[in-house]
């Protein structure tokens, strides 16, 4: 699983870094940042990623199935 933030949508509500503080952080103005390289989500944090995406008021958090992983697991 991979996550990304759409900076054109993020308004700094901070729900993602409240709910999944291991995956998301805040910059100096409160906008969300990714704490995991390339947005790759460790397996044990996938629930947090989904929760963050489902609670973002601006729908700025995207959760993507990783194409390579998907191919391997398919």
């Amino acid at each position, binding site marked *: 699983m991979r996550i990304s933030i759409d900076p054109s949508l993020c*308004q*700094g*509500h*901070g729900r993602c*870094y*409240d709910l999944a503080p291991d995956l998301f952080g*805040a910059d*100096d*103005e*409160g906008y969300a940042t990714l704490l995991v390289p390339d947005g790759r989500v460790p397996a044990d944090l996938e629930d947090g990623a989904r*929760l963050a995406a*489902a*609670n*973002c*008021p*601006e*729908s700025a958090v995207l959760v993507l199935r990783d194409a390579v992983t998907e191919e391997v697991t398919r």
Partner: protein
Amino acid sequence: MSVDDRFTSDASTLRSDPALGTFSEIVSGPVRDWATDFSHTGEEWARGAIGIWDDLRQRCPIAHTERFGGAWLPTRYEDVAAVAYDTEHFSSRGIIAGNFRPPRALAPVGGTPPISSDPPFHHDARKLLLPAFTKNAVGRQEESTRAFCASLVDGLAGRDVVDAAADYAQHIPVRVIADMLGFPPEDGPRFRRFVENALEGIDLPPEERLARSSRLFEYLLVQIRDHLEHPREDLTSYLLEAELHGRKLEPAHVAGTMALLLIAGIDTTWSAIGASLWHLAGHPEDRRRLVAEPGLRPRAVEEFLRAYAPVTMARLVKDDVTWRGVEMKAEDWVLLSFPAANRDPAQFERAGEVLIDRQVNRHAAFGLGIHRCVGSHLARMELRVALDVWLDRVPEFSLADPAAVRWSTGQIRGPRALPLRIG
């Protein structure tokens, strides 16, 4: 260093001449039909707003009134969101829907930037404030807020019935914002009057409203001059030193932003704390669960924010437009009811129920789009700490007299009298 000559004139220079704005006829009296004659200033709204929105959402989702010189009230989530995102048709020059519209020439800055600002000015004015209101930054207020809440509870000792709105919730945001702005904490009761004047005196005669708002700017000027003489580490000194586009801020920008920070954080947070305690007083099963499971409280806070969102914003229609089937006229108000949006069954499962363990909660209590409440992290901290302290110290409480609970009128919704029986 040269003397700062921006603040040598009297307080009337800190804002545009209100006489350049427009006044509409004050229409009061009972509402005939909520779909065509709504008013957010009466007791019926204070008591029953939630039911009014639910009714309108089904039969007339964008209600209208001729009062306030013309105003609209969308009640569906998708319509509220669409207005919030549409800065092309809707201006933030006016954000308190009433019988006074600020002068048109004030756009795009507005009287209280950045909440009153439109793009492109809005972005830069907002950027000035963001660093002071991040989750990290407001975290520095948490310890003192917790201690203050505890001292308020100490002060209730020995009483069977307390007014949780007036004796507890109200004081918390007043103290926090006074600390942040660097105003004397003993001035709290004056802030309360400034807030009332700005937000609740909608149907007062214009002369009276203007006289009252001048008192706010006179007070701010005193604080500004004190900070110029004695600079310190607070938001007032920060704004006095801040630069935009290579220059220090215009005096009206400094004072307008100070007015905003003073007004916007008080009634709103007070309302959220009070509404949460009101809910818990009437729902012992939720109260007992949150007392026993502190880990659940952050999620409950989000649900209280959804179900009892205190803030309705407003916009002014820029030009005549047919918008989603209704004919909006230039200068009409649009009430941006985030509370109504938050109860739309098309957006939320079991929208009418308060589920303190709701997992998926994409609520809009702090707005949507570029005007997301700058103080949202501060408000969340205050609400969480206020409930923590109360639940840990006063785990047993109930409504002392449900009929004595009084809700506010206007755009900020919360209990203003909340007698609770303790123990």
